[in-house]
């Protein structure tokens, strides 16, 4: 019963407009089943979702709810087994071949034999940019993530938070309109995480990029997002889509506000509903 209520609520919540309108990602009845030795695993089941240009959308849910899998389908790192998905109006594969998105992984995934600067230049080299342009962009985006002066360091000489910032600079430097982030701050301590959350928010505000962000932290999701997608495991599905109409120029202080608490409460309710259904 509780779930039905949530579902009805989510339909109502999905209607209002966020972002600037034009849909960037459209997902229809998408399912993905992994065939394993222990039988099929239903990672995603009939997922329906639209992400508009300029949105900051968070996928939140417990482990195994398919949030990372959904992000990977968008990035064409996995293929769905049923349903349709379009990214910028084309298939994820075509979008990937056009280098439509920058992807930030859970781990920094820096290449240890490259300096910080050359790690950031990696996508630019692959895309055939001139050496001068590569240099200029690496400098610009390292500055953006506050890593000026660390160009010649190797990854092991940096802290975990700094490494993750390098990986963000690497995802931004070829200027994709779409940024896909898979728990990028999951492994960091809370203070570093707060700081990076604020930096990311400023970046989103300034560039107007569309961001899809996977997390399992409720405060992080509420603080960052314009839209929160609550997911539930076994089978992985969407149980609520919540609009988060906090002002774009929000600061960390907003976490003390009533509006913040209300949205966080609704996210928590959604997560709990999904969980009780599972048991």
């Amino acid at each position: 019963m509780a779930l039905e209520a949530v579902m009805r609520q989510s339909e109502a919540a999905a209607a209002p407009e966020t972002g600037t309108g034009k849909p960037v990602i459209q997902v229809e009845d998408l399912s993905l089943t992994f065939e394993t030795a222990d039988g099929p695993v239903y990672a995603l089941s009939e997922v329906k979702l639209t992400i508009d240009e300029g949105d900051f959308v968070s996928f939140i849910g417990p482990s195994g709810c398919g949030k990372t899998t959904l992000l990977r389908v968008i990035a064409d790192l996995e293929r769905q087994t049923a349903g349709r998905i379009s990214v910028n109006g084309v298939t994820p594969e075509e979008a990937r071949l056009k280098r439509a998105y920058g992807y930030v992984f859970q781990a920094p995934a820096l290449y240890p034999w490259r300096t910080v600067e050359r790690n950031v230049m990696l996508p630019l080299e692959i895309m055939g940019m001139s050496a001068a342009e590569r240099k200029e962009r690496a400098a610009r985006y390292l500055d953006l993530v506050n890593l000026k002066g660390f160009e010649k360091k190797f990854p092991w000489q940096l802290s975990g938070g700094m490494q993750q910032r390098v990986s963000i600079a690497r995802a931004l430097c070829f200027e994709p309109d779409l940024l896909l982030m898979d728990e990028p701050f999951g492994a960091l301590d809370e203070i570093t995480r707060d700081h990076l959350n604020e930096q990311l928010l400023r970046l989103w505000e300034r560039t107007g990029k569309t961001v899809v962000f996977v997390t399992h932290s409720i405060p992080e999701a509420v603080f960052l997002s314009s839209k929160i997608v609550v997911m539930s495991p076994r089978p992985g599905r969407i149980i609520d889509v919540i609009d988060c109409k906090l002002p774009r120029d929000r600061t960390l202080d907003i976490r003390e506000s009533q509006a913040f608490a209300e949205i966080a409460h609704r996210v928590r309710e959604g997560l709990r509903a999904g969980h009780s259904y599972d048991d």
Partner: protein
Amino acid sequence: MTTEALATPPVSARGLLARAFAGRSGPLAVVILAIIVLWYAGAVWLNAPVLIDGYERRDVDWSFSQLAGDAMAMERPILPAPHQVVAELDKTILGTSITSKRSLVYHAWVTLSSTLLGFVMGTLLGIVLAVGIVHVKTLDRSLLPWVIASQTIPILAIAPMIIVVLGNIGFTGLVPKALISMYLCFFPVTIGMVKGLRAPDPLQRDLMRTYSASTNQVFWKLRWPSSLPFLFASLKVAIAISLVGAIVGELPTGAQAGIGARLLVGSYYGQTVQIWAALLTAAAMAGLLVAAMGGLERLVNRRMGVRA
């Protein structure tokens, strides 16, 4: 009191010794010393029966010190004493013009040139095979068993065949020997590089996929740099066995030149001192070659930012 004692640390022989043993030189010196002592003891012990036979046949009275002295000065001992080998090395390396056929330097160079040629060819072959195995599924399934089977054939059995066959079609000297070296040393390179080229983790490969990188780009920007630690481990093994291959290749050629030829001639005429001198030269060459690979590895590591 204590500060005074700290200010003037006593420099004693004991302090020096302690410092030597804290590092590598102390233990190394002990091991070398032990080997030399054992070697002398072994020389006396192994050469004694022949000498005693001689004394008894000539009805000479003999003492142990006389026996020991004679055992270390025989012309064709079972086991020559270290100083005899050193004298032979001195004579054939420093005391002979390097263009002479009696010079060990000349023979070492003959062996070294085919070692290096075989090593380069073997390394290239090994890398090419590994690249094929990693990129082509059919090769992955079909090639590796043959690569492994190739190494189960004793090289001593196949080396004369290679020399004879190649000699018949006009290849003599350097090339057949280098081919035997290549045959031995491509193997560790292939095995190491297959592992090395597959070393990148799924995350590093996914990253390349998000950039829609071509197979070529994935190879040069990810697979190749990831494989270098494996390559150097293989190269150190490969260069040592490449030397073995070159020496083995010199044995059936009629022994014209090279370390292998020195070994063969030495055994024809019972010149054990010459054999040991050649053996030590080969060992020193192997050590230097492996050390050179280690140096190259450190150089590359520094460029690749490997944590010291």
